[in-house]
């Protein structure tokens, strides 16, 4: 219960998680994430199936979103206190990479699945439903 409350709480500014969204013509902006649910929503909003063709069309609506998945794992463990989920994410991600963008594209779906499961568990715990 305590863990569920902590996972679903909003964190203060200094403990925020930083992600980024890049558009072709509006550039890259950092996104501050203040809660686990916001992190889930960020990952949900990341489309990773754009072809190179779609990405590079001039004036394209495609975005390249990015969140350092190892930093996410650390944040979940250190700030939210969910060491089990943190470890599970690290196992999926498999360490640092020379091309973090490509790794993000490959790993975001399995990471999101884990996080959505946890989100449902925590919400269920707080509402008293299994």
């Amino acid at each position, binding site marked *: 219960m305590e863990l569920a409350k902590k996972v679903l709480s909003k964190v*203060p*500014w200094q403990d*925020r998680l*930083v992600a*980024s*969204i*890049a*558009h*072709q*013509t*509006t*550039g*890259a*902006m*950092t*996104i*501050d*994430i*203040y809660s686990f649910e*916001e992190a*889930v*929503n*960020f990952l*949900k*909003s990341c489309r990773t199936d*754009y*072809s*190179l*063709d779609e*990405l*590079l*069309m*001039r*004036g*394209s*609506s495609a975005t*390249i979103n*990015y969140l350092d998945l190892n930093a996410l794992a650390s944040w979940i463990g250190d700030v939210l206190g969910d060491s089990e989920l943190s470890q599970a994410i690290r196992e999926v991600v498999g360490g640092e990479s020379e*091309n*973090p*963008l*490509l790794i993000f*594209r490959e790993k975001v779906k399995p990471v999101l699945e884990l996080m959505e499961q946890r989100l449902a568990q925590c919400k269920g715990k707080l509402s008293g439903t299994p």
Partner: protein
Amino acid sequence: MKGHMGKILRVNLTNKTVKTIDTKQYEEWVGGHGIGSAIFWDLVASQLPISPYDPKNVVTIMTSPLTGTLAPSTGRTEVQGIGLQSYPIEWFTRGNFGGRFGMMLKNAGWDGIVIEGKADKPCWINIVDDDVDIADASDLWGLDAWETQEEIWRKVSGGKFGKWIETSTGRYTTQRPAVLTISQVGELGARIASLVHDAGNAAGQGGFGGIFGAKNLKAISVIGAKGAVEVADPKALFEAWKWAIENYRGDIETRPSKTPSAFGAQPTQGFWGVKEKNMRPSACAVCPKACRAKFRSGIANESQCVEFAYYSWAVSARYGGPTIELNKAADLTQKYAINNYELLRILVYLRTLNAMGVLGKGKAIDTDLPFDILGTAAFVEELIRKIIQGKDIGLALREGGVRAAKQWGRLEQDLKTGVLAYPYWGCPEHGYDPRTEAEWGYGSILGERDINEHDFNFFVYWYPLGFMATGNFPISAEECAKICSEKLIPYTGDPFMLDYSDEGIYSEHFVKLVAWHRHYTRFWKQSVGFCDWMFADLVNAYGPNNRGLTPDGEVRFFNAVTGKNITFAEGMEIGRRIWNLDNAIWVLQGRHRDVVKFADYIYEVPFPSDYPLPMYIKGEWKFASAKGRKIDRAKFEDFKTKFYTLEGWSTSSGWPTRSTLEALNLKYVADLLAAKGKLG
């Protein structure tokens, strides 16, 4: 010059007089920005510095000789004057908008409009061919940008689309007037107010909406039936199109998985909202890209790009992706004619201050903004309501992010940390941080605003990001550098212009890149009118050997329309002349190299994310990241010195010298600067 209609409308709102300027008087400046700067100099320079709110501030709205012809992507109209947005000095600046206004103005027989003075009460300008009336706007004042246009359509063309109206020249048209208007936000003289035309064409930067409001000018309406723009060589114009399509567009149906052409992208690509079933592409006049869309629902018509991006992060945080709230939020910025980039950075700033515990109910910056509904259109609407009513934090926010932060006593600290992402001249950061994409940041700080010019950005920023995201690298950094070295007339033969490494961005090579960019955009885009989403076309996977149609394309279209026979280099020289004239105006406003500096965070805070760029490192070209970079103060000062040297300006002040100005046939500019003690 063919393409010109021959006259520019000159309206004095104080005296309520209407005169004409013979376009031939300014033909050497070609059109758009060139003519705007030249007219501004003639009418205002000797009186500088003045406040942007001063009735002596002149606003010019200029087309180009290509506007209204079949030259592709030339539907833009350039707006200039002393703006409200920049800080601490309100620079002479520019904005630009698309749509059909420029074409309609030409069809009415006008090349542009010059607005002087200040009306004693709200008015609007009604142009019907040669007839120009300064009409009472008391029934328009208080309306938003869309309501205003609908009311003017009713007044001028009976309100019914397709109804015939007769103009003063005995001609007939079923067109609705093209209207450029402000909303209530502009009426208040707000610095974040933009000018809007039709559903979603806006001149956002500069705060010209507030300038219109300060002049008691609600809107300009134009309907033209005088006829088409005369083209010198129609056959050459069609052949230029054919050449561009055959060589640079590629087959949309069989497009290989390489970088698509700028010339002929798929329609509605600029629309980033939630698509509906009943939608169709929408384009500015004579543009093959049709980057916008229109919907049966009427929601998000003609909005694109930042009109969604300013709020998409918040909608996604709330809903896990875009929803119809995003489309509604786009509409709010058009309806209320507000600068989207300001809104973007203001929203992020407010959210950050709220998370820090500094802003909110009962906090140091007290506001009842409902952050629990951030991500809904209702949140944006509430914020805009506060701005219009001048209540809560709304009054401060009318002044823009930087001045609001100053009022709250946070400007210095938040510019030091980057919490307030306004890197140059109090203008919001576009997404291409000076610490990374230096040509953008340098061009902005050496000019007067966020440049919003994607000529290099397309392939130095987005290409490598896309390549990395897919693990597919069809074009190398070295090839991009080589192509630029061939195309950047008159600085050909130097591939190191494209070196964005830690050493490269302070080099003599990079100086040339920045100077090329300033001169190219001043002429070929802001004066000739080519749209930023089409030109420049430098690196293009559908062109021969990955090469785009710049520099040949611009010249082909320009010469076909005007009947001139200029070279690309000659156009660049006109651009250099315009750039020098603009600098002279800024000097009269207070420009000196000592004030040309970025916000502190650009020098003090390492850039936090990966940002791949072409770099030449240890004898090898590669796409490498600028993560962790800061701009070195001393090295940037040295860069400025090199830049001023290349431009022929004094290295101690950044002021143009007499020899440079006279070589550009600007002796009269040198004489005035000398009289004011500001010659380099």
